[in-house]
């Protein structure tokens, strides 16, 4: 079954408070965990997102789409990266998410919806 693991946080705050050693360690961890899930055959897709302060929000105003700069500049909890993994069990995805949590304020795990069951 497929799950999306979403990592929330704020790169800006992290960079302002983290030591070079912590950043170095975090980079090594991220490189390694990506390698692990690629080699285990579980990785479907993963991506890191540019900082939330660069986001645009598109909403309808009087029926027309209008793009504005995202309101996330101050948010500590914008989505900064995600993985879609195909794993054997919920326990496995929670274990994976637990590893990510070491470096994130919050990690959310959601099952990816499937087609209808076989007829």
């Amino acid at each position, binding site marked *: 079954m497929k799950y999306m693991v979403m990592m929330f946080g704020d790169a800006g705050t992290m*960079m302002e408070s983290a030591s070079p050693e912590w950043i170095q360690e975090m980079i090594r961890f991220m490189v390694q965990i990506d390698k692990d899930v690629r080699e285990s055959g579980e990785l479907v897709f993963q991506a890191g997102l*540019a900082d939330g302060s*660069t986001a645009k929000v598109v909403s309808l105003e009087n029926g027309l789409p209008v793009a504005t700069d995202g309101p996330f500049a101050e948010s500590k909890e914008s989505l900064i990266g995600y993985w879609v993994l195909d794993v054997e069990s919920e326990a496995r995805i929670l274990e994976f998410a637990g590893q990510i949590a070491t470096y994130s304020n919050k990690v959310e795990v959601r099952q990816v919806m499937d087609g209808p069951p076989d007829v």
Partner: protein
Amino acid sequence: MRLPPTEDLLRELSPQVLGALVRRHGQFDACEDAVQEALLAATVQWPAHGVPEEPRSWLITVASRRLVDSWRSDSARQRREESAAALELPEAAQPSGQDDTLIVLFLCCHPALSAPSQLALTLRAVAGLSTAEIARAFLVPEATMAQRISRAKQSIKVAGLSFELPPANERADRLRVVLHVLYLVFNEGYATSSGPSLHRAELTTEAIRLARLVHDRMPGEAETTGLLALLLLTDARREARTDADGCLIPLAEQQRELWNAAQIEEGVALITQTLGTAPIGPYQLQAAIAAVHDEAGSDAETDWPQILALYEVLERVAPGPMVTLNRAVALAMVDGPRAGLALLGTLDADDRMRHTHRLDAVRGHLLELAGEPRAARVAYLSAARMTASLPEQRYLALRGARLA
């Protein structure tokens, strides 16, 4: 039986075979599919049975057969009739021994196509890469890339583009587009990604191979030579520009013994022979700048006054904020960081720089050199927030954190 086929041979023959087919049958779209199938057949059969005596003819024969098969299986009657008519085109339509590679390249880089289409189609029809290979290199699903290529071919059909070299009065403009496409292919591969970077390195290799191909077939085009030299001299530093974790290493800190000496030698020779033989252009100037960097035994030995002079010429030939930005770095190395920072200040109001992290990244670097760690840190962190490149974000974050 000869030696097993190299992929190089197939890639070299691919556009020639396509050219031969299009001359005979028209229908660039269908011919291109048939050539891909013939290439696939060759990769299966040649290693087992040896390379045929006439590999080019073999591929043309197999591709033609596939083309006819595809027409036969097509149920639309009108299409069958058109095809039958096309098949009766006289053989003489194909000048013997003619190399159609350039025609195919110019067609794939036609201004009627969007840039992503130009890149994808060039890699498939000229470089002979499969859709799956191209998709992996661009980190998109194969189905997406297949659609992009099919739309590109559709654009050629709709625009009614003919299979011939651009007329003399359009040649220079069209060559500029071709060179730009090759430049983009290279950059796509050179920009390090967090994903598996192996396939992306393939793009830089392909871009160099294609630039060499244009250089060989259209001798005397100084900007083509300039581009080839620029790609060789830039790619020469590839091994040294990232560490084991994929983090960027700035030029000043790279281990120069990791640089590719043969590529540097070739690039320097190319640009040295070319400078002064024709009107100067942006690729020649960028190559000359890269050559000055690559020839320095250490960062301290870099001939910055020479680089500054070259950026001044580049700014006259092809002005733009990114050139000014680079000139500011060179100026800082010659006249001190304050001079560089003053020049950077002129870019603050430039709208084109509002959404790039580069201005703040360079500002951080120059402020650091000027002995202002606190201000440098603010600039680095601002740049880190703005970049869309993960390795760059990590590099800038580390740089800023070290100054805390």
